[in-house]
């Protein structure tokens, strides 16, 4: 197995930086959640797990995280497909090819901060509406952050993921030679609409599906954006886990680790599913 020293080094690198942390972290979370370690724990118990499922907070949190990821992804996919199909040339060079990548320069926390300042009740948009006479007082401005429908989170996530998908689709548009197909279809008598909905969109969607799922997996764990723009309840998985592990009640800590365990199992199973069903490799 290790014919050359370089192979030993490679294996060690993989082991130390990728495999070991995962095993240790997961093992620790499992052990803590079952009361095997921790100063306030007194040996093996199922109590923490039972307490976690006494109410449906955790389930709601997972559904909520998934819903946020799906909502922002859907918008990103639709808009970036529209860009790829309609403005393919404009976005492959020139000023737009620079502008569209702007959000890539934004860390999540900066994007969250900006949207808080922009969409908040006393934010820029609200001030503009006031100056234009659309609203007459601060309260009349709709809640766009820390709001019931999580609009702020979805917009911020959309902003962050748009360049990624625009890039993907403008790239696919060219490599999959969609232009040629649509021209062919049009010459055979298909209408513009038809060729878009029957050819361009299905090809792009199918080709990008694994990327969409991978992105979905990343976004379920989103932390900074929901932390700053979300409501007190429901919380996304990351925010909930951090609160349980770092906030008020010491006896909540094992539950926090139980959430980490559930999260890890879900994410890793999803990931295995995607990677297994798709034999191709994904370049990031």
């Amino acid at each position: 197995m290790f014919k050359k020293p370089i192979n030993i080094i490679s294996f060690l690198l993989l082991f130390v930086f990728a495999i070991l942390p995962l095993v240790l972290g997961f093992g620790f979370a499992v052990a803590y959640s079952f009361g095997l370690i921790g100063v306030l724990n007194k040996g093996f118990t199922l109590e923490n797990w039972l307490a976690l499922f006494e109410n449906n907070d955790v389930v709601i949190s997972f559904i909520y995280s998934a819903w946020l990821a799906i909502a922002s992804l859907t918008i990103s996919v639709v808009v970036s497909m529209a860009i790829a199909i309609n403005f393919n040339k404009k976005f492959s060079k020139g000023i737009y090819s620079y502008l569209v990548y702007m959000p890539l320069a934004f860390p999540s926390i900066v994007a969250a901060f900006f949207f808080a300042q922009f969409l908040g009740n006393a934010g820029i948009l609200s001030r503009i509406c006031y100056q234009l006479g659309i609203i007459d007082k601060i309260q009349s401005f709709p809640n766009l952050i820390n709001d019931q429908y999580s609009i702020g989170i979805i917009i911020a996530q959309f902003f962050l993921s748009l360049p990624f998908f625009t890039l993907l689709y403008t790239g696919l548009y060219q490599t999959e030679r969609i232009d040629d197909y649509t021209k062919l279809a049009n010459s055979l008598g298909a209408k513009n609409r038809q060729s878009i909905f029957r050819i361009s969109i299905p090809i792009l969607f199918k080709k990008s599906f694994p990327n969409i799922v991978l992105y979905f997996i990343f976004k379920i764990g989103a932390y900074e954006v929901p932390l700053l723009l979300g409501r007190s309840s429901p919380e996304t998985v990351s925010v909930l886990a951090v609160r349980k592990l770092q906030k008020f009640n010491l006896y909540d800590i094992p539950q926090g680790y139980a959430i980490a365990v559930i999260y890890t199992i879900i994410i890793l199973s999803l990931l295995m599913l995607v990677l297994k069903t798709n034999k191709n490799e994904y370049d990031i």
Partner: protein
Amino acid sequence: MLKLKTILSGIVILSVFACNNDRKTANGSKDENNDPMMKQSWEQIEQKAKGSTVTWMKWTGDKKANKYIDDILIPRIKNRFGITLKIIPGQGPSIVSSIMSEREANVEKGQTDMVWINGETFFQIQQIKGLYGPFTYKLPSSQYINYEDPIIKYDFQQDIKGYEAPWGKASFIALTDGAKVKNPPVSMQDFETYWKANPGKFTLSLDFTGYTLLKTWLIELAGGIDNLKGDFDQKKYDKYSAQLWDFINRNKKYFWKKGETFPDNAVTIAQLYATGEVNFGFSFGFTAVDKGIKEGLFPKTTIGYVLKPGSIHNTSYLAIPFNASNKEGALVVINYLLSPEAQIEKSDINNGGGTPVFDVSKLSPELKAKYDALEKPKYGMTEEEVLAKAIVEPHSMYMIKVAEDFRKKVIDKK
């Protein structure tokens, strides 16, 4: 399968040293007074501390206080004692969790040398034997402090036993804009009436300020603080808290954003108050009103007032984690922070504001004159007015329970 085995063996290893951990903790209750470190003279301690770094974990939500610490305190401590003071942000729960993780990992040289805590944080850290002490008897500045004063001796009904050195006193007040709110609501009933007439203009924060408001109402429901004095009483708590959650749940639709979300901290509420989104703020410290007005944040018509059951009055303390790596340095810094000079400066409304911890009768005439010469608040209540209505903190468990149940019974309840 192989992976599962590795994980399982990992767990076994972990649980082995977890047991180890427990044993050490059980034996760890050595008498701290015999710690050789504490046997040194104060001069030796100061000498040892020279050139060291002290890491102080504290709540950093007060802009003015931060600026005072950054611009004046840190350079002075460097000049006078040769100590580099480093602030790291963290309030109650994160202080507890960081000390706890170090306890679990058996870390001998911890990350923090001193912490700013009180109440439930003190209570929780004591549960995990997370503090070093007793140490207050060693501080020369202790001569100015009356440790028998109940407001200092008991931190949320719990005897500090020399494990905490008092740093500031604070009283809980409500603030509102007198121009907008003619008759500020004082009792719960007043609030209910106000909310119904003015929906969306009230909220509370998910931090100690908000929870203190909830405790104030709990005291009102219990018919006064006398009923909740002493140890935590589950029966009483269940009775009055049920009424409290009912009161909030039936009214939260009149809160800011329909009570569907609450700001994380009092700083955010101050901002909401400043922009006029809500009409009430809450704060520890009668100087909060003046500070807000001076900063240009609050309207000049802002007034401070005390709610019906009284103003919850507490002391906040400085303490040393059990595994602080620079205990000498921490002692020197704490001693300086307790000194009349630093206390008077801190009480200045241009810096932190608040009530100093020294016993005025123990001050020299010069120091007393200096204290009396401090700029008096112009807009809020005077110290005497607030103190006349001061009540003590109920036991820490009330805070912990209120915080937990507010989430369970109000926030998470649809």
